[in-house]
């Protein structure tokens, strides 16, 4: 998923690239609650007859479901933020916070996209500068990579505007 946003503090326009997640956190919580609710219902009914030992297992299982869904969701939260700050291109990536930060002069940076003919290969989108290469949009599919590629071309070729709206 590629989106454009304006940093409210600095006014810098950024491109935010996120990994594919097919369900929102809210939907994950509803899923965990539905599973926990069913287990609690069964455990509660059985406990009402005096056979209470089902309840602790149902509770432990609900905790496990919640923790696992949270962990899985977080793992899919890999994000790249590409910002044009002055004449520098800043690429930050990580999960909750930027773990990797790469900086390159925008006038000496080129973007390349190896667009493969096969429908099920996504190709490689990278920024190249001074003989070094940095892959960006690694979590995107081919259509999204093409969008990001076009946007990066515009971004690197023109002074104004630095980043344009991605349709």
């Amino acid at each position, binding site marked *: 998923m590629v989106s454009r946003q304006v940093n409210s503090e600095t006014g810098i326009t950024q491109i935010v690239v996120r990994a*594919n*997640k*097919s*369900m929102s956190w809210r*939907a*994950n919580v509803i*899923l965990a609650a539905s*599973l926990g609710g*069913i*287990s609690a219902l*069964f*455990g509660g009914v*059985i406990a009402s*007859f*005096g*056979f209470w*030992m*089902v*309840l*602790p*297992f*149902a509770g*432990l*299982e609900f905790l*496990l*479901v919640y923790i*696992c*869904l949270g*962990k*899985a*969701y977080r*793992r*899919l939260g890999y994000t790249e933020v590409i910002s044009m700050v002055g004449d520098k291109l800043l690429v930050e*990536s990580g999960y909750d916070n*930027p*773990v*990797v*930060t*790469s*900086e*390159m002069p925008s006038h000496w940076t080129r973007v390349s996209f190896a667009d493969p003919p096969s*429908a*099920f290969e*996504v190709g490689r989108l990278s920024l190249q*500068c*001074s003989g*070094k290469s*940095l*892959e960006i949009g*690694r*979590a*995107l*599919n*081919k*259509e*999204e990579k093409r969008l990001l590629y076009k946007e990066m071309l515009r971004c690197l070729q023109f002074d104004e505007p630095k980043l344009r709206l991605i349709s």
Partner: protein
Amino acid sequence: MSTAAAGHHDHDDHGPAKGWTRWLYTTNHKDIGTLYLLFSLVMFFIGGGMALIIRAELFQPGLQLVDPLFFNSMTTMHALVMIFGVVMPAFVGLANWMIPMMIGGPDMALPRLNNWSFWIMPFAFLLLLSTLFMEGGGPAGGWTLYAPLSLQGGDSFAFVIFSIHFMGISSVMGSINIVATIFNMRAPGMTLMQMPLFVWTWLITAYLLIAVIPVLAGAVTMLLTDRFFGTSFFNAAGGGDPVMYQHIFWFFGHPEVYILILPAFGIISSIIPTFARKPLFGYASMVYATGSIAFLSFIVWAHHMFTVGMPLAGEMFFMFATMMISVPTGVKVFNWIATMWRGSMTFETPMLFAIGFLVMFTIGGLSGLMLAITPADIQYHDTYFVVAHFHYVLVPGAIYSIMAATYYWLPKWTGNMYDEKWGKIHFWVSTVFLNVLFFPMHFVGLAGMPRRIPDYSLQFADWNAVASIGAFGFGFSQLIFVYVIFKCIKGGEKATSEVWEGADGLEWTVPSPAPYHTFEKPPAQFS
């Protein structure tokens, strides 16, 4: 270019680790799928060996090979091994291999949890099988562990309970992983109603498992405390209720039956369209039928207990609720037939097993309908008719679907085509002996032969001898299966990406054998 904080490395090119650590530490869904499948195959022969001991003893009336306690241990262990050690791990193995590839995900959502889910299993079964060598022998009260009978065994009972807990933990962790994967990691644009049926059936199966495993865990823990800590949950002398154990157990046990068969429905729904070269007839109705079966599985448990005694209204409710299951199941059977109708059908080994499933599972379903009728069930209860019924559901049902899936996806896993001639021989020999083994059980059951006995009346001798011949034939014919698998792993005609002409789905778009990492980046927009 300057990099402020390095720590990210490229995952594109790394392959499996070398040596045995690859299998111990692996978090790769394909490796873990392979481990599950191999474990299941080994347990299939262990459980099958137990079945052959049972059938050897029953070859003729009288006690000749084993003592009655050991015989009862064999019937109990055979069931536990086949249910928890063969069918469930095989389906989890298939899910591990195929679900990420079918939905376009790079791996399971929680790979380390996946590793733990598998490695708990061998430990659990070592614990269970070790009870056979303990003082007092292994569990001998039947896989249902009915109180108070199961509480009268040896001290190995604690090990049995712990092993069941471990199996439960493994199943719950595997199920949570599958649910998290299917919900969060589908390819962009792949809606729930565009998922392959195998993914749908596994999603519903995982729901069932998560819902009922705490019930089993609670029930067996109460058995443990009754046996060793002086509680009286199921001890009538202490104010407990042994019948309640049966209710609690079957509240887990009946959904468990569907846990063992729903993924099979998904497999058959993948195979039949491929070899009929037509899209699956009534996809949406298949999804809703699977959901209906899962829902109904929660409200039919007491049909296992008609002879225990319950109010007439209860008997009527459970009888009609059980009969209702035949409606969504019938929808599935008719949809599979409609898919084949006027299709350009070919009969490669996976399709033979799928058709074998369809015919023989229906036989098992029809005898199940007979057992659903309360007054009839009171006659059939605890006879070999019941044994014939559930073996027709589980062997040509669950086991045939696993074999069909293995032949179907083996070229994708290994990159080689299996030996079609030997695959077909495996199917026909298995099918003939399977019917020689299980069909006579209907006759002896209707004539009144009780189950779980090492000796029987002379009038049942002939059909028991026939069944035992069938058992040995079926058992040894599975060596062909092993031969075909290992021959395919070693080499053979190279498989293409699509493998089967009529195959459809994301898993057929990756090369054969499937690379160690697939869909590390999501595939193009799914439509």
